[in-house]
C-alpha cells in the first residue's frame, strides 16, 4: 500500500515538474502583431554584441564581492548576459543583486488577471526548496548588544552565507512552476536559432514572441519593500519577523522612492535626511 502511494506521489510530482508552465502556455497562445514584430526587428538590427572581458590588468584597490553566475539555468540567459541589468545607472547594481535570490519571471512575468504564488525553487532542476529564514541571506534575529561600549554586531550565520545561489523565489501558477528552463525544447530551439547565423526576421519574430508576455520594466522597489499588499508573502517564504521588518523598511528602497525622473541625481546628504 505504501509502495503504491509512493509511486503515485512520484508520478504526480514528475508530471507536475515536467508539465508545461504558464509562460510556455501563454507563448503558445500568443499571436504577434506587425507592430510588435517590426519593433523587435529594429531591436535585433540595432543590437551590439558585447563580449565579456576577463580581469583587468589593473586590479581594483578594494576587495570586492564574489561574482557567481547564479542565472546559469535561466532561460533568459540564452540571450541575455548575466548579470542582465546594464542600462539604468541608478538601479542596475541593485537589480542585479536581486537576481541572486529572485528569478527573472518573478519581476518580469506578471500577467493581468492571473493570481500567481511565489515559492523558493532550485533553478537547477525546478524542484521546490524547503523554506527557512537562512534563504534570505540576512541577519536572522534582532541585534543584541554584548557590551555597552561597542555597537551591536550583525551576525549573518554560516548557513545563511552558504545558501545555494541557484535557490530563487520563482512564480507558480496553480502549484505549477511558471518559468521555462533552458533545457526545454523551446529554449533549446531558441538557443540554436540565436547561436546560428539565422535570418534577422526569424530572430526578430522569436524575440518578439518571447518578450510578448513579459514587461520590460519590473515592479517598483516598493512592491515588495512594504508592509502593505506586498507582492511577495515574506512570511510564507520563511522570513522571520525581524527579517520581514528589515526588508519592508529597507532604507535603499526609501531612497529610490524619492527619484521622480529617470536621470535624476540626488545629493547623498539629502537621501540620509
Amino acid at each position, binding site marked *: 500500500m505504501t509502495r503504491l502511494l509512493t509511486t503515485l506521489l512520484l508520478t504526480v510530482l514528475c508530471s507536475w515538474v515536467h508539465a508545461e508552465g504558464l509562460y510556455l502556455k501563454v507563448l503558445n497562445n500568443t499571436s504577434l502583431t506587425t507592430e510588435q514584430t517590426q519593433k523587435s526587428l529594429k531591436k535585433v538590427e540595432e543590437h551590439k554584441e558585447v563580449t565579456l*572581458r576577463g580581469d583587468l*590588468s*589593473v586590479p581594483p584597490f578594494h576587495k570586492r*564581492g564574489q561574482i557567481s553566475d547564479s542565472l546559469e539555468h535561466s532561460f533568459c540567459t540564452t540571450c541575455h548576459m548575466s548579470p542582465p541589468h546594464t542600462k539604468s545607472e*541608478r538601479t*542596475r547594481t*541593485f537589480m542585479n*543583486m536581486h537576481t541572486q535570490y529572485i528569478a527573472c519571471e518573478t519581476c518580469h512575468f506578471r500577467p493581468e488577471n492571473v493570481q500567481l504564488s511565489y515559492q523558493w525553487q532550485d533553478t537547477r532542476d525546478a524542484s521546490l526548496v524547503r523554506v527557512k529564514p537562512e534563504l534570505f541571506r540576512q541577519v536572522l534575529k534582532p541585534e543584541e548588544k554584548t557590551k555597552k561600549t561597542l555597537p551591536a554586531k550583525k551576525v549573518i550565520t554560516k548557513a545563511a552565507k552558504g545558501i545555494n545561489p541557484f535557490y530563487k523565489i520563482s512564480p507558480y501558477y496553480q502549484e505549477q512552476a511558471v518559468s521555462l528552463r533552458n533545457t526545454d525544447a523551446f529554449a533549446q530551439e531558441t538557443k540554436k536559432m540565436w547561436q546560428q547565423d539565422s535570418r534577422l526576421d526569424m530572430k526578430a519574430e522569436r524575440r518578439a514572441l518571447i518578450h510578448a508576455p513579459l514587461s520590460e520594466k519590473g515592479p517598483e522597489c516598493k512592491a515588495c519593500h512594504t508592509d502593505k499588499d506586498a507582492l511577495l508573502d515574506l512570511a510564507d517564504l520563511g522570513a522571520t519577523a525581524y527579517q520581514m521588518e528589515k526588508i519592508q523598511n529597507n532604507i535603499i528602497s526609501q531612497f529610490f522612492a524619492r527619484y521622480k525622473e529617470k536621470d535624476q541625481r540626488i*545629493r*547623498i546628504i539629502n537621501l540620509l535626511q
Partner: protein
Amino acid sequence: MLRFLLLIVLLVLGHEQASANPRYSDPDGCLSCHAYEGLNYIDENGVMRSSTINRSHYASSLHGSVPCMDCHREVKDYPHKVENTEVDCSESCHIEEPSEGVKYSHDVIHEEMDKSVHAGGWYKGLTGGNRLEEIETEQDPSCRLCHSNTLYIAETQLVDFKKEFDHAETECGNCHQGKAWMGQFGGHILRRLVGRRWNNQENNQMCTDCHADVKKMRDVEQEDPDTLEKHPPSDRFVHSADSYAKTLHGRLIVDDSAYGASCIDCHSPDGWKHEIRSYKDPVSASHPDNLPETCGQSNCHGYTKKPGNEGFTLTDMHDVSLLGLTYMDKPFEVEAIRESKWFWSSWPLLLISLVFAISSAVWWLRFRNTKKIISIVGGDRFETVMIGRKSKAARKKPVAKKPAAKKAVKPSAKAEGEAKKTVATDKENLSSAATEPTDKQVEPVLKVDEAVAEKERPVETDKVNSELPKVDNDPNDKGA
C-alpha cells in the same frame, strides 16, 4: 570655575581623540549600500564591475581607519559620476599620524614619484578612476597597479601576530600603558616586525608584472631626458627583465636567496623606494657615477667605494648581448648581430665543428675499408674489454722476463708483419701449436717472437687456442 572644568573636559577629550584614532564605523553611511553582496553589472565595454565592498575585509585593511569620503571626496550625489569617484592619494587624510598628531599624508611618496620615470603618464595626482581607461590610455603605473588595500595583518601571519601582540602587551605595557598605545603603536610596530610580507622575489614580481611583458614594453614611448624627444624603446629597455634574469642577482633571487639584489635595491635604494630614475640621470642610483655607492650599500659590495675598485661596477646588469637574437625586435640587423655575444661566441664553435667535420671526412675516405681497430680514443679499452687483448701497459712489459710458460704468445699484427719480413714463419707450426698447446710446441713461436721483441714488443695472450686464428686480422696489411 565652570569654564575651568569645561576646559579640562575638552582637553581630556581632545587628548583622547589625538592619541587614539578609533576605527570609524562608516560615518558617511557608504556601506549602507556598498556592503551588499552582488552589486555587479557589466558595462558597455564588457567589463564586469562590482560596487560591493567587503565590509569585514575593509575594516581589517590598511585603510580600515580611513572613512570612505576621506579619499572619495567628490562623491556627493547618487548615482555617482565616475569622475567623482577618483582618488588623489597624495591628499592628507583626516586620520592623524599617532606619534606627532599631524594629519597623515602620502605626500612624501608623491614627491618621490614626481621625480621618477613613472611620473610621466597616468598622473592626475596619483589618481585612480576608470581602470579600463588607465590600461588603454596610460603607460605609466598608478598607485593601485602595485598597491591594493591589503589586510593590516595577512591571514597567514595572524597566529604569529597575536602571539607577539600578547607578548608585547606584557613587555611593552610596563611603560606604555593603555589600549590606545597598543592599538596605535603596538599594532603598527608589530606589523612592521611580524607582518613584513614582501621578500625580494615578491618585490621583483611586482616590477616584472609589467617589465617582463615584452609586448607591453615595446608599446612604451620613451623620452630623451635632454632633448625631450620621444622615441621607441630600446631592446635594452624592452628586455630589462630577461637580461636581469641572466645575472647572478637575478638567479640568486629566483633561488630564494637573500643575497640577490632586487630591482628596487639598485634602482631606488633610498627613501620610500619610489624614486626610480633613468640611469642617464646624474642623480639616479643606477647612474654609472653613483654605482660604487649603490653597489656598496648595506655592505653588499662595500669594496666598490674604495678608490681603484670602481671597475667592479662595470659589470652590466642588463647586458642585452647575453640574450639570444630571437629576443630582439629586429634580430637580423647588423647592429643586433654585432652586439650579440651569442653570435661571436659561435665562431670558435663553428671553427671546431668545421675541423671535426673535415677530419671525419678524411678519416672516412682513407680508412673506410680498414677492419683494423685503430686505437685513438678508447681504442685500447675496447681491445681489452671487448676483444680480450691485454692493455697497452701490459703489452709494454718485456716478454723476456716472463718464463716461457704454458701460455702462448699472441703476436701483435704489427709484430707479425715485421716477423714476416725478417723470419720465415712456419704456418704449420702455428696451427699445430694452436691445436696442441704443449711447451715444446710453443717454443718455436716464442723464439720467433723473441726475435721480434728486439724491434717491437711482443704481445702475450691468455687465450692461445681462441686467439691464434685472430692473429692476422689485417691480411691486406692496410693497417701497417
